[in-house]
């Protein structure tokens, strides 16, 4: 029963969504629309679960004095700070929650992602070798796109930005499309496997 009921729920929910798409009339429309909203609400439970798990992990680290436990209070305080300011003062502009987001969270997010520029560039420096003609093609394509993106590219030769636009809109689109179409087929087959209960690893075992 611990397996059959969740599988039955999965099948029913999946079929309602599919039927809502192919038969957009009552009762499927009503069921499908409601289920989409229910989906968001139940999925939000996963966010709470994640946050509670984060707190649990860091509390445990502090309790057992595990490696780097001294930084765990920083995570807990940061979490509680956002939670309390958001719940007490609201999320509108010029409130403490917005202030913390604009001045601490957003700069940290941008800095974290900008750090990747260094690592990606250093990885590329080590990995990019014009060892064969295809690797040379990859290197040239990346180089042209980078050069076409900045003013110096146009200063070197005014056709470089045009080459960049062509590379992005034709070969890049072709490659991405092939990947997207392949991925879509994968999503369709995996979804069918999930709905019909063939794929059940998300339930964590068969007991």
């Amino acid at each position, binding site marked *: 029963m611990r397996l059959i009921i*969740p*599988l039955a729920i*999965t099948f*029913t929910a*999946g079929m*309602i*969504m599919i039927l809502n798409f192919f038969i957009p009339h009552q009762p499927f429309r009503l069921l499908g629309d*409601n289920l*989409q909203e*229910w989906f968001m*609400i*139940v*999925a*939000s*439970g996963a*966010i*709470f679960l994640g*946050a509670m*798990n984060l707190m649990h992990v860091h509390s445990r680290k502090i309790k057992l004095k595990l490696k780097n436990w001294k*930084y765990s209070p*920083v*995570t*807990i*305080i*940061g*979490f*509680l*700070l*956002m*939670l309390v300011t958001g719940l007490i003062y609201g999320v509108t502009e010029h409130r403490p929650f917005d202030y913390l987001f604009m*001045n*601490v969270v957003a700069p*940290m997010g941008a800095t974290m992602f*900008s750090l990747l520029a260094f690592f*990606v560039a250093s990885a590329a420096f080590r990995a990019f070798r014009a060892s064969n003609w*295809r690797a040379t*093609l990859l*290197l040239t*394509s*990346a180089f042209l796109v980078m050069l076409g*993106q*900045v003013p110096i590219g146009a200063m070197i030769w005014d056709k470089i930005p045009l080459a960049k636009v062509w590379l992005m809109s*034709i*070969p*890049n*689109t*072709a*490659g991405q*499309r*092939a*990947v*997207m*179409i392949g991925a*879509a087929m994968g*999503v369709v087959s995996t*979804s*069918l496997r*999930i*709905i019909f209960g063939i794929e059940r690893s*998300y339930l964590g075992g068969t007991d």
Partner: protein
Amino acid sequence: MNWEILGIWLGALVTFCLYSFLYRDNPFYKFAEHLFVGMSAGYWVIYNIENVLIPNWWQKMFPAEGGFSWIWVIPGIFALFMIARIVPKIASFSRLSLGMIIGAGAGLNMVSFFQTNALAQVKGTIFSLASDSVWSVFSSLVLVIGVVSGLVYFFFSKAHTGVVGKTANVGITILMVAFGASFGYTIMARLSLLIGRCQFLLEDWLPTIPRLLGFGG
């Protein structure tokens, strides 16, 4: 020091702490990293409450015109079941919630992915030969050949020999150009973020130092 300057200093402080990782892993980086994780988690919990739970659940369960809509209790219970996973004794209840979101997600993604990532992409690849320029027709041909050969490369049910092998080779070539272009684009996007942070430090944070020391206006 007013709130605006304090905000700039906070932003600069966490920026320096995170960039210190470029030297090597150190306590300042670890501090900022842990702070980022905690504050981001807090931010998403509040975002979820404000943008999902209040408008889509609470306001529907207790409508503005009064009354109580009992049907909305059900998703609330399912959401609680999800949290039950943290308590080992009742953890199996979370399977019901998982079943629901995985099933609904699978059904929703199956049709939407097929529409947007397969049918719309195929439709976008079909082109008219009655185009106004030779270059446009050439580009469209490269696009069609690229998509078809790329798909052949990803088709593993047949050995990549003969015509299939040759087509797959064309696919690899197109994919190499595509990955190179995507890589270059990603680097530039990250660089623009880096420039943004440098601009913040130079144009927003640096001018506050003379102001704090009483030199500036």
